[in-house]
């Protein structure tokens, strides 16, 4: 068993980055995720593993530092909260286009605009539909606990390098700020330069005589060439949809109704499920863990076995669009959401189920 600690979600991300063998963190402070960089600064990972931690002059600078680091095959990451992630979109699109791996953590706060510092899930569209320009996706992981904040850092880096793609952890202010028990994984040594050269033949690691220059770019002015790049990206996304879909189902075996929720909302729905079951309402929970690729097939399957489904989100109805696209035939699917930093209470969710699905 790994080391047990009581940690904030943000601290767990930072500690997991050091243990995952991350080479560099570049970020700019913003509430509610500032503890990530604070923890790293206090922990001085340069002394533990040689990992670089740098406060950039802006979010735009951080994401471009990731572009540079990833271009040399290094394991790099950044973190921010909603407005800061918006600033990074150009760089993320460039990285997707240049097929560069990196990990980005969004500890979401309420928006639009500067919004509030309270938790929200209103960045779902931005995370799963692209966010920046061009036809691209990131793999999007949605942790629902502090444990997953730690585990998904390691998973995120693995997937980023497996597919040469930016990976986003879509968290929220509550999971970032709350403390839970975490079992930390054992540290993985940072890769040596020789290992990077061997494992990342695409990276700009210095030109030996026997091969051509490696050019990292997302620019190809020839449309035929650009289409080829796009086709390659699309093939990659199809592969992800085949191999990387992750979800969790809780008490769905006998369920007549289903909550569909990710991240913090899924935790609230678990409590709502207990309250509803005490009232003899047989409800289960379907929790997408990857938001891209989305567990469309599994949702289509379960939809056939139940009378109705309630999608619960801390936004005005975003994931519900992907749920509806997953279904073969019209189903009773409704949305319940709170926004702007308000977290729905478990009994409020039960009332919504009773009114919108059971009684509706």
């Amino acid at each position, binding site marked *: 068993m790994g080391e*047990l*600690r*009581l940690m904030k979600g943000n601290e767990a991300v930072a500690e997991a980055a050091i243990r995952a063998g991350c080479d560099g963190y570049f970020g700019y402070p913003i509430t*509610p995720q500032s503890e990530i960089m604070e923890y790293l600064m206090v922990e001085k990972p340069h002394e533990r593993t040689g990992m670089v931690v740098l406060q950039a002059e802006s979010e735009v600078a951080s994401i471009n530092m990731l572009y540079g680091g990833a271009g040399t095959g290094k394991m790099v990451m950044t973190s921010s909260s909603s407005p800061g992630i918006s600033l990074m979109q150009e760089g993320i699109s460039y990285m997707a286009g240049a097929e560069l791996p990196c990990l980005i953590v969004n500890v979401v706060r309420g928006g639009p605009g500067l919004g509030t*510092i*309270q938790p929200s899930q209103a960045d779902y569209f931005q995370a799963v539909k692209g966010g920046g320009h061009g036809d691209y996706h990131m793999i999007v992981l949605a942790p629902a606990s502090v444990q997953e904040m730690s585990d998904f850092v390691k998973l995120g880096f693995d997937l980023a390098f497996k597919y040469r793609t930016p990976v986003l952890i879509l968290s929220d*202010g*509550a999971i970032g*700020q*709350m*403390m*839970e*028990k975490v079992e930390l994984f054992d540290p993985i040594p940072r890769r040596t330069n020789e290992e990077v050269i061997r494992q990342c033949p695409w990276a700009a690691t210095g030109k030996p005589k026997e091969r051509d220059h490696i050019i990292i770019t997302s620019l190809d002015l020839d449309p035929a060439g650009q289409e080829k790049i796009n086709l390659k990206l699309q093939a990659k996304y199809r592969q992800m949809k085949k191999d990387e879909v992750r979800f969790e189902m809780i008490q769905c075996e006998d369920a007549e109704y289903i909550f569909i929720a990710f991240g*913090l909302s899924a*935790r*609230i729905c*678990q*409590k*709502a*499920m*207990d309250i509803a079951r005490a009232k003899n309402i047989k409800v289960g929970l379907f929790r997408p863990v990857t938001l891209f690729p989305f567990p469309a097939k599994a949702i289509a399957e379960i939809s056939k076995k139940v009378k109705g489904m309630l999608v619960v989100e801390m936004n005005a109805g975003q994931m519900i669009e992907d749920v509806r696209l997953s279904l073969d035939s019209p189903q009773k699917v409704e949305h319940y959401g709170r926004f702007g930093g308000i*977290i729905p*209470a*478990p*009994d409020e969710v039960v009332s919504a189920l009773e009114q919108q699905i059971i009684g509706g």
Partner: protein
Amino acid sequence: MTEEIIIAGFGGQGVLSMGKILAYSGVMQNKEVSWMPSYGPEMRGGTANVTVIISDDRISSPIINSFDTAIILNQQSMDKFEKTIKPGGLLIYDPNGITRHPVRRDINIYSIEAADEAGKLGLSKVFNMMVLGGFLKLKPLIAPEYLHKGLQKSLPVRHHNLIEDNEKAVEIGKALLKPVLVLN
């Protein structure tokens, strides 16, 4: 066993750290725990509260709106949280600074004059641990040896010389507890 607790008072009273010590002791005793602070645009001297859940099972929502126990250390928190205690639940409050005493008749109510006592003994730094002692007397969820481990884990090493004072404060707190209303 699941115990859902809200601890609420002024910033600077040690509300968040009391919750952290309780939660960390729970981890050491192999319980599931969650610690969810209010992290809004609070400032020094403003209100602070934290929800702590300790359970033998996986914890569902870390955000809840009714509690088994409320530990209340100022008037604003009394106004906000007295009504959120589950019927049959527990309210512990320090009467220092309280102008409107609790009115519920369907919960167990205890007072603990910890602020006064901590001031008299010159132990105001560990006032929060006196209050925690009062709670642990009524709900002995955490065994003393795990509380010791929880203190070791939550306090920075430079403050480990204060662990003894903290443990002493817990014992003082247990003696300070006074029943106000005890249901049959």
